[in-house]
């Protein structure tokens, strides 16, 4: 386990003490800075090279977002005499993650921001040591974790695949692009994404005119003249189908970028490539998003990914709960996170909060391509009894999650 000493925590703690004298007259603050202790627990994933050479996967996505969130929390904390200490535990394999969790829990750690695959997250959530812990799942998008696999001690920051799919289908419904060709890749993530699209299409009355698996392996596609073969294959694959939009499910970026401009009919591509529903996007600059983009760029020297954004939101959610709940106690923070008073401002122009039925953070979903923000769902006109944000994903009446 790697524990990082953060000198900033000390600086802020000192400055918090320094301004204590002047502020004590007005506020009944505790005599010294209380500290919010939490941990970042991650399985270091081996990134697979994407199709496009342009976007090399970063080796530090997730944790960079958590670090930025920590800096934001600390700035708030120094005014109200709250310090923050985030222990970073980024482990090479599942066994090491489990061991790290157990040792942190034994040391009294109760709040965890996690960057773990679904099965490992559940394994940890079900440990006896995790019984009164809170796991803020910063990166997993599996619908299963919000359904039968939901846990009372887990909260989810990033939108689920169901929310992403609903966000896209709402937009297609508004555009009256009602006929789609669904193309799914072979990986488990691709299959789950395609399933979410099928479900969302039925919900918003989008017709899937053809549902085809992508099996073509172009081999050495970067060799000279490889593009002829790909163009011919995509043209053949899409021939004779009458549709408005090609929706692709390729979470690993293995072939989706090959589908644009090569189909038989000129049709836009959406889904995991083309017009992408996502929590965060590089072209996004609304609602002060520019500020977060530029702070992140300055810190990490690269663009913010969805995983960074999920981790930033998780760390900020803990900070908001500590500040507005006026307590650094992990149980009080965990309680405030789930209370109706909790609200998170995450540069989406809306107050975000956790759904009581499955622990999912309700939030708008961006629709963007590589260069521009196209739209933000929920789309106007999709109404809801309580919150329009709950038109995205699994709503309370449909939820199969029974939180224990």
């Amino acid at each position, binding site marked *: 386990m790697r524990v990082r000493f953060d000198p900033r925590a000390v600086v802020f703690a000192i400055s918090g003490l320094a*301004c204590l004298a*002047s*502020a004590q*007259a*007005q*506020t009944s603050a505790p005599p010294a800075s209380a500290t919010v202790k939490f941990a970042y627990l991650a399985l270091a994933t081996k990134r697979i090279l994407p199709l496009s050479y342009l976007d090399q996967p970063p080796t530090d996505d997730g944790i960079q977002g958590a670090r930025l969130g920590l800096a*934001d929390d600390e*700035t*708030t904390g120094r*005014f*109200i005499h709250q310090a923050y200490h985030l222990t970073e535990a980024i482990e090479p394999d599942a066994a090491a993650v489990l061991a790290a969790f157990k040792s942190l829990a034994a040391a009294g750690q109760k709040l965890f921001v996690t960057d773990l695959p679904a099965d490992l997250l559940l394994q940890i959530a079900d440990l006896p040591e995790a019984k009164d812990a809170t796991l803020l799942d910063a990166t997993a998008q599996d619908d299963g974790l919000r359904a039968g696999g939901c846990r009372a001690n887990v909260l989810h920051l990033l939108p689920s695949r169901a929310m992403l799919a609903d966000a896209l289908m709402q937009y297609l419904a508004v555009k009256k692009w009602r006929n789609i060709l669904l193309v799914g890749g072979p990986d488990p993530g691709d299959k789950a994404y395609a399933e979410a699209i099928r479900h969302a299409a039925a919900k918003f009355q989008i017709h899937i005119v053809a549902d085809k698996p992508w099996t073509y392996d172009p081999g050495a596609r970067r060799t000279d003249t490889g593009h002829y073969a790909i163009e011919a294959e995509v043209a053949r694959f899409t021939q004779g189908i009458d549709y408005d939009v090609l929706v692709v499910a390729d979470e690993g970026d293995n072939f989706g970028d090959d589908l644009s401009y090569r189909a038989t009919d000129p049709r836009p591509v959406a889904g995991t490539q083309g017009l992408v529903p996502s929590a965060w996007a590089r072209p996004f600059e609304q609602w*002060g998003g520019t*500020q977060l983009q*530029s*702070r992140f760029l300055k810190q990490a020297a690269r663009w913010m990914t969805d995983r960074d954004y999920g981790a930033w939101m998780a760390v*900020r959610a803990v900070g*908001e709960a500590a*500040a*507005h709940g006026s307590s650094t106690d992990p149980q009080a923070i965990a309680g405030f996170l789930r209370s109706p008073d909790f*609200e*998170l*401002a995450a540069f989406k*122009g*809306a*107050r975000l909060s956790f759904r009581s039925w499955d622990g999912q953070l309700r939030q708008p979903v961006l629709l963007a391509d590589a260069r521009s923000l196209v739209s933000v769902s929920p789309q106007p006109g999709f109404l809801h009894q309580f*919150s*329009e*944000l709950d038109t995205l994903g699994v709503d309370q009446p449909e939820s199969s999650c029974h939180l224990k």
Partner: protein
Amino acid sequence: MPSEMTAARARLAAPLLIALLCAARPALAERLLVSNEKDNTITVVDGKSLAVIKTVPVGARPRGIILSKDGKSLYICTSDADHIEELDLASLTVTRTLPSGPDPETFTISPDGKYLYVSNENDNRVSVVDIAEARITSEIAVGVEPEGMGISPDGKTLVNTSETTSMAHFIDTASHEVTANVLVDSRPRVAKWTADAAQVWVSSEVGGSVSVIDAATHQVVKKIRFAIPGVATESIQPVGIALTGDRKTAFVALGPANRVAVVDAQTFEVRKYLLVGQRVWQLAFSPDEQRLYTTNGVSNDMSVIDVPALKVTKSVPVGRLPWGVVVAP
């Protein structure tokens, strides 16, 4: 930039000429000055005819604007140019630039007219700018993304809001020390003192509320919330606040709800919602408080509200993404 000018000229050639001639002379009817964030311009509108007098090119991304105490100049936060520009209101040209620190978004001016207090959104700092000497005399560390600025009528206390930290910081302008921090709802934008200095009103854009803070005890005495039939609560995003001098009525711009709320400032009851342009942002009274002007960022116009009648009487096209509005006597 000159598109409004050309259009206005085509429609109103003769009246505009008169307006132009009159503009050179002071002591005339009020002029309205609007910063257009996307156009990098200031639109100057005649208060009486509501015709555009001139569209003045300024530095990149003008947002916060404020009048000098002698009423002769307009200070402009040109955020992407990383400085403040001074627009001479007689010649309608930029005559001077002042330092501001990085990314100045908005500011306020000391009652004696000597200092500007500037929020540096990217830097978690408030810069104090000596106007005469054109230099930054001091920097005050505040929360993440400092935004709204309100100064007490006696000039002794500055209130700054920080958007990500969700606080109103009370700052002693003599010592530059932060004396109190008041937690409010998410993304606080604007801080406005009542004329009697008893309260500070702070709008929370994402929280959807206005916190009324007792200036002496620093306690939130009231959180005003808004509900409009048929409008999603998420789109009610309070930003600009205008309070009448007698502290009887407050107006609150509700952003993408496209409405200005009329609030009884004594009982804090919301009396009415006035439908204005899209994404209503900032507000300014005419000097006699008979009219209220709003900037509407998405519909690229300004709405005029008849204050005694509580009716929206007119909309005036300005530049793209209008941000701030100031009334020059």
